[in-house]
């Protein structure tokens, strides 16, 4: 062969040279073997890691639905017009050069004797920012105008964005309508720094409806712990049910493997770990009732501050829970607030983010006379005995008098109840029952304690033990008899009325019933229905008297003894507005004298219906209403009208859940 021919010839030196060259070749071959075979695994791995990117694919968040599968929260795609700032570098540079020239012309002192230009410290930076703002502002205006939604650039927001995250595209018009997407694609895409960006977004289609209950989600970055090449934002529950049931709703994000070429373009993509959509959760809320409650509440008073709880007394299910004023949770999702909106959200008087139905504790006022009344009856009060009221209560000559809208006259228990006589209930409460007994009954109904509806948001209120009552604590026994100075939440009062309606069972209220997996259809109970919290002992005779007295509140006609405090609101031209749907209720008005308070008065109407077979408890609270009857009873009437509609459609009438 050709190499070995040389060895056949004589010439030792040539052989040596051949040997040296052959040794060199062998060394190269050895190197080749080492690289290609020994280290092959390692290089293969390096090359793979270099070419494959892991992209996190966020899971679709579960929906929130009401008891008849109306959607309260869901995901939908959001289209944004965005601007790629790195593509604008040439324009920025051009504009900067022009501005600099103009500046030098306007300031001749910047040119020294030798013709050299010296700009003061900071001036180039200012000019650069001005140039960037001018270019981006121009783009923003042109694009938004062509989308028929002219916008001006918020320069501060832009500069902050440009300073902090220039690699993220700058948003110029969010949430494009389909027609706008078409215009954008036709006029702008492919020829400029403008692009269309798509992202899933949490949507609350009913806007402020039940917002305090649902809460909202917020965009979250970096949730992948830096494990991935691209950080896709997703949503994290930030308040309300979105926060409490975040784990159920969020699902499991997956991973895609993207093969890229040497220029970082995508060549091939495949699913490594598929994502698992989150579960839908079903509430006990009835959207129609919720809507009726919120609308009625908003109309109750000019600035509509208040709360409504509608509960099923048979199992503690919450059918509606309204708090006004409310907010649009959609605003929180993307965090685009107008200054007015931010101011409104931060207003200490309106506190739209507080769920007044369970996070607000209010003096129950005259609705507390139910408790005082039971305490008196259990202490031997004869309900038929007549009491001659002077029309006010004064504990001693120097003390201030407590007024009484019931006026002076003769009162038995029932009349004192439906006319809401302060003097009767203070006198009887102190003489017959005593403060300790009254507070004991209040504790029996678990007033001033959290109901256990939610781990968050709920406050306990304040119903003290009798040892904590006295001038030194800023509380007086006569005030407590008529529900002043102590506090409870509307939700607690709904529980109290439910006990009266169902004859003695206090349920743990429930707002979430079950979850359903969208992929497998598997249903899982999240909160058991009808969990009994306590059995409240009341003598049937006493219960009956309280119930009939509450009925008189709405039904006692204006004769020489009447009318009932809510009669006027439940009747039109002498006929009951709700027909034969009879409602038992109690009005209340509490005055608040503490200096720091945001309200002067709290008005109430606590009720249940239908009287014969109670299926609904409606508790209405309005801040600074005229009175319980005038401000709150009309709200309750409107809600009962919605309830009648609901029953006609077949919902609610049969026992909704086969418990008890």
């Amino acid at each position, binding site marked *: 062969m050709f190499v070995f021919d040389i060895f056949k010839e004589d010439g030792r*030196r040539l052989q040596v040279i051949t040997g040296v060259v052959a040794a060199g070749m062998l060394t190269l071959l050895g190197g080749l073997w080492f690289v290609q075979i020994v280290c092959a695994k390692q290089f293969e791995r390096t090359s793979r890691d270099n070419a494959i990117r892991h992209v996190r694919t966020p899971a679709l968040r579960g929906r929130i639905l009401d008891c008849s599968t109306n959607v309260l929260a869901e995901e939908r795609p959001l289209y944004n017009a965005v601007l790629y700032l790195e593509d604008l570098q040439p324009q920025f540079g051009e504009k900067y050069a022009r501005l600099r020239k103009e500046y030098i012309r306007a300031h001749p002192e910047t040119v020294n004797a030798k013709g050299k230009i010296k700009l003061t410290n900071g001036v180039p930076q200012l000019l650069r920012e001005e140039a960037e703002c001018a270019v981006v502002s121009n783009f923003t205006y042109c694009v938004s105008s062509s989308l028929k939604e002219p916008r001006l650039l918020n320069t501060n927001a832009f500069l902050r964005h440009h300073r902090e995250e220039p690699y993220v595209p700058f948003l110029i018009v969010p949430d494009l309508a389909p027609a706008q997407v078409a215009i954008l694609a036709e006029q702008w895409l492919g020829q400029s720094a403008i692009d269309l960006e798509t992202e899933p977004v949490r949507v609350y289609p009913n806007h402020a409806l039940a917002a305090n209950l649902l809460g909202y989600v917020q965009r979250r970055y970096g949730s992948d712990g830096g494990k991935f090449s691209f950080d896709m934002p997703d949503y994290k529950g930030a308040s309300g049910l979105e926060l409490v049931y975040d784990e159920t709703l969020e699902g499991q994000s997956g991973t895609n493997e993207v093969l890229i*070429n*040497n220029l970082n373009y995508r060549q091939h993509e495949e699913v490594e770990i598929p994502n698992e959509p989150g579960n839908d959760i079903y509430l006990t809320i009835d959207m129609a009732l919720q809507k009726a409650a919120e609308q009625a509440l908003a109309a109750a008073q000019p600035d509509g501050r208040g709360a409504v709880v509608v509960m099923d007394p048979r199992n503690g299910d919450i059918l509606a829970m309204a708090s006004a004023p409310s907010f649009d949770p959609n605003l929180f999702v993307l965090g685009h607030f107008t200054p007015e909106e931010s101011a409104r959200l931060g207003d200490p008087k309106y506190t739209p983010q507080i769920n007044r139905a369970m996070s607000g504790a209010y003096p129950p006022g005259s609705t507390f006379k139910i408790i005082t009344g039971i305490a008196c009856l259990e202490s031997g009060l004869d309900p038929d005995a007549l009491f001659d009221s002077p029309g006010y209560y004064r504990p001693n000559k120097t003390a201030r008098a407590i007024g009484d809208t019931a006026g002076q006259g003769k009162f038995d228990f029932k009349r004192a109840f439906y006319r809401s006589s302060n003097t009767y209930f203070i006198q009887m409460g102190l003489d017959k029952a005593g403060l300790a007994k009254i507070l004991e009954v209040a504790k029996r109904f678990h007033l001033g304690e959290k109901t256990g509806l939610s781990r968050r948001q709920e406050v306990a209120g304040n119903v003290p033990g009798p040892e904590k009552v006295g001038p030194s604590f800023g509380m007086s026994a006569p005030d407590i008899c008529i529900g002043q100075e102590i506090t409870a939440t509307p939700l607690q009062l709904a529980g109290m009325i439910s006990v009266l309606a169902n004859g003695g069972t206090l349920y743990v209220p429930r707002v979430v019933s079950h979850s359903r997996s969208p992929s497998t259809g598997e249903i899982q109970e999240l909160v058991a229905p009808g969990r009994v919290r306590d059995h409240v002992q009341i003598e049937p005779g006493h219960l009956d008297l309280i119930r009939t007295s509450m009925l008189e509140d709405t039904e006692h006609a204006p004769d020489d003894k009447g009318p009932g405090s809510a009669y006027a609101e439940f009747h039109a031209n002498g006929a009951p507005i709700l027909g034969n749907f009879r409602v038992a209720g109690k009005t209340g008005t509490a005055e608040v004298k503490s200096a720091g308070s945001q309200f002067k008065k709290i008005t109430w109407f606590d009720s249940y219906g239908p009287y014969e077979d109670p299926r609904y408890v409606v508790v209405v609270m309005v801040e600074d209403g005229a009175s319980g009857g005038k401000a709150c009873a009309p709200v309750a009437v409107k809600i009962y009208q919605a309830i009648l509609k609901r029953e006609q459609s077949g919902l609610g009438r049969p026992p909704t859940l086969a418990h008890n």
Partner: protein
Amino acid sequence: MSDPELIGRRSDYDWPLAAAVLGLMILGTAFIFSATESQAALRTAYLHQMLWYGLGVGAAVAACYFEYGSVARWSAVFYWASIVLLLAVYALGTAHHGGKRWIFGLQPSEFAKIGFILWLANYLSRPQEELRRGKVFLAVLGYTLLPFILVLKEPDVGSALVFLAISLAMMFVAGVPNRMLAGLVGGVGCWSSWGWR
């Protein structure tokens, strides 16, 4: 060239060499294709390579018809012409990558290697006794150092050292005594270790 003896002895052709060259050509094209496939601007680079192969094969075939004995007569001309080119680099050359090596896009040091090999082969083709003389050794040393220093000053140490290696290997094969070669190797060793300091 029209010698019937030469034309008739086709079997003497070095087919393994041709096969090796063909193999290298195929591998080279494959490597270029693989490396440039994903880059639009370079996608046709392998076609250019094949074009050059065509030219190269033509040149090789032409060279085969050339009687190599006659090259010896021209070797001195090649050698001195390449030395002139090396000198011309200083006057006309352009600088890239930190060295002044190019003249009209060509590196004269590459031609100098060929010219140097041809001339040295011609010069060393003499009887063993003459090769033992110090005069011949010094002459070879001189022919080596001339291009070596010119290339070293470009500066291009890598190419310059090639002249030393070629010279050493050729003298060794030609039969220059070991002690002289050992002296040369020792001298280069001293020079380079001094140069490194």
